[in-house]
């Protein structure tokens, strides 16, 4: 039998026309290779198109979001103040071994640096940096540099310094200068963990009055935990009734969940200010039913923060649970009941396990969001109820201690990313969804 004539067809694969031979026993291998090549080409083109579509957003976020955060994290170890503004001193102090008062060259270098920085009005930065090492160092530097001789160099810089302030003979001040005369430092990161570095490179616990940050992180995590637990306690039954309470109930409950979700965070926060104040509705109601005689403090304390934050975050708990519960077939619980399980057992053994992924997703979301909260604690809490975010903003705006702000940011970000990575893998979460 003669070979069949090649039957060539024009087909469209992914929108591109190509010619394919369908029946030709002799050249089958050749034709299939051609087809494979063509498919690969199309595949490559598809991939390029996908990259081209994602590219703009990727670049945008890389520049406007990721790069700024990386630069900020860099500030947590960046230590430019002394190196930049006291360059001669930085060089002169390297030879000093740390025992006794340094010699004339170090004093001369510092004298010239202070004079120069004083005139350029750039003394504030190194003075503030050195003050982090020894409290009171800033005013010592400022007072000294106001009294330093201008123009003509004095005969002995060392004598001049010691005449202005005898404290300049103390090695600890020079040690502080030497310690900070490095382009990078672990000072802020260690301080954020209530640690500090000694001059010989060891790490010790920070003095008690400065050791506030572990407590701060602990408080932040504890508050986030309480808020997550309260949201779960309130959100699970709510989601359950939304799914299993009949169609009318679902519609009504959806409104109760979604309207607060869409309402501005500040509207809800101001509502709680109004409700929880001394003469607010909650106090009035409690007095009216006779539960209390005098108004109780419900706001500007921990309670106020909890109430406000649970109110804001509850929809974020309900929605993932609701989404998962909708996928649980009613027949499973019915089957359990028909096999003799009581409603409690059927719930515990059959229903609850099938909703765990929703519970996990909701808890993770609420926990992560609450760890980073700033506005609501700032408006509803006292200074003792503030979370890490508040201190990051405080150091950035109020004390301009950007190294400390960045160090706290590094630790907060690392904690959140770790939490997210561990739990999302453990729970096998897919992509997040919005109900």
């Amino acid at each position, binding site marked *: 039998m003669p070979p069949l004539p090649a039957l060539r067809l024009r087909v469209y694969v992914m929108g591109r026309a190509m010619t394919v031979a369908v029946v030709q026993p002799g050249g089958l291998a050749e034709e299939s290779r051609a087809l494979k090549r063509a498919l690969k080409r199309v595949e490559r083109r598809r991939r390029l198109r996908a990259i081209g579509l994602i590219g703009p*957003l990727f670049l945008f976020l890389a520049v406007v979001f*990721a790069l700024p955060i990386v630069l900020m994290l860099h500030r947590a170890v960046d230590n430019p103040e002394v190196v930049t503004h006291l360059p001669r001193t930085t060089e002169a102090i390297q030879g000093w071994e740390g025992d006794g008062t340094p010699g004339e060259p170090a004093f001369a270098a510092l004298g010239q640096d202070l004079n120069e920085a004083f005139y350029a009005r750039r003394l504030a930065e190194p003075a503030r940096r050195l003050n982090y090492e020894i409290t009171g160092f800033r005013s010592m530097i400022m007072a000294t540099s106001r009294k330093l001789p201008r123009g003509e160099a004095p005969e002995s810089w060392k004598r001049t310094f010691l005449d202005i302030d005898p404290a300049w003979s103390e090695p600890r001040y020079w040690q502080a200068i030497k310690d900070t005369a490095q382009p990078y430092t672990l000072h802020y990161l260690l301080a954020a963990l209530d640690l500090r570095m000694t001059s010989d490179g060891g790490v010790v616990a920070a003095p008690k009055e400065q050791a506030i940050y572990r407590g701060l992180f602990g408080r932040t995590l504890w508050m986030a935990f309480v808020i997550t637990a309260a949201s779960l306690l309130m959100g699970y039954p709510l989601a359950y009734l939304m799914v299993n309470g009949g169609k009318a109930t679902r519609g009504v409950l959806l409104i109760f969940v979604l309207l607060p979700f869409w309402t501005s965070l500040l509207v809800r926060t101001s509502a709680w200010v109004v409700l929880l104040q001394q003469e607010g509705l909650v106090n009035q109601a409690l007095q009216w039913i006779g539960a209390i005689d005098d108004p109780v403090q419900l706001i500007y304390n921990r309670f106020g923060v909890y109430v406000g934050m649970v*109110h804001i975050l509850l929809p974020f708990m309900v929605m993932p649970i609701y989404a998962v519960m909708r996928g649980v077939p009613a027949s499973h619980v019915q089957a359990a009941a028909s096999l003799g399980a009581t409603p409690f057992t059927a719930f515990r053994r059959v229903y609850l396990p099938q909703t765990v992924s929703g519970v996990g997703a909701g808890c993770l979301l609420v926990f992560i969001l609450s760890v980073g909260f700033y506005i609501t604690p700032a408006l509803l809490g006292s200074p003792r109820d503030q979370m890490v975010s508040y201190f990051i*903003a405080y150091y950035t705006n109020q004390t301009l201690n950007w190294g400390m702000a960045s160090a706290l940011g590094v630790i907060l970000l690392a904690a*959140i990313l770790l939490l997210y990575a561990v739990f999302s893998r453990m729970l096998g979460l897919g992509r997040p969804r*919005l109900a």
Partner: protein
Amino acid sequence: MRNPGTMRIPGPPPHTPPVYRLWWYAMRLFVALVCIFLLAPILAIVPISFSSGSFLTYPLPGFSLQWYAEVFEPRPWMFALKNSLIVGSGATVLATTLGTLAALGLAKGNLPGRSAVNAFLISPMIVPLVITAVGVYFFFARIGLNASYPGLILGHTALAVPFVVITVTATLEGFDTNLIRAGQSLGAGPLRVFRRITLPLIAPGVASGAIFAFAISFDEVVVTVFLAGPAQRTLPRQMFDGIRENISPAILAVATLLVLVALALMVTIGLLKRRSDRLRGLHG
């Protein structure tokens, strides 16, 4: 099938043992309390905004529209509203465009490292706002974008973009790709397929994403506190200061108007979702 003629009084299913009967009522009571907790504060502020007095307490001394009159004065509230609308619309256009393109790209599949890329694109949602705000603040200070409209719009866009990506991706998930193949096999080029098939089908999802983006920007305070100068003071920023310094019924009047905005957004999203499901042949 229930007889439509009989009215069913809500209650536990028949033949339920007493302990479960109690449980049935207890759970509904608890959920009702949760619902009161969710909605009551939002409703409680509405009457005070119509108060003729300046205290934020009940009983109200009388009815007045004075606080609304104050809100409609050019300063500070209408100025803040104008700024919010400028920034919000800028961020919405940018975020919707970038987010929709990226979602289309992600849906093409078989991209190496797709889930990592996806995680990166939605990471502004996960990173605490203060960290984003401080980082962008330092960065924009270097390139002179602080206290400017473009700076604020760019910052809000970064925060809003994940919501667009997620919403449009969800729309594309139920997307019947056979429709695209059908279009291609009939000879339509990629652009034409996009314009005539893809876009009309995902339009409700894109619109939802745009609404999300606008809502995010319209309600954003933290990044605004850092990036905005006095000339870019937005509505939430103005409210933040108001609540901190002296909270007056005028703030509650603004709040009441914002609740109406929230209601409108919620209803619109609901309608868009229904339309999107219908277009994609889903029945929810």
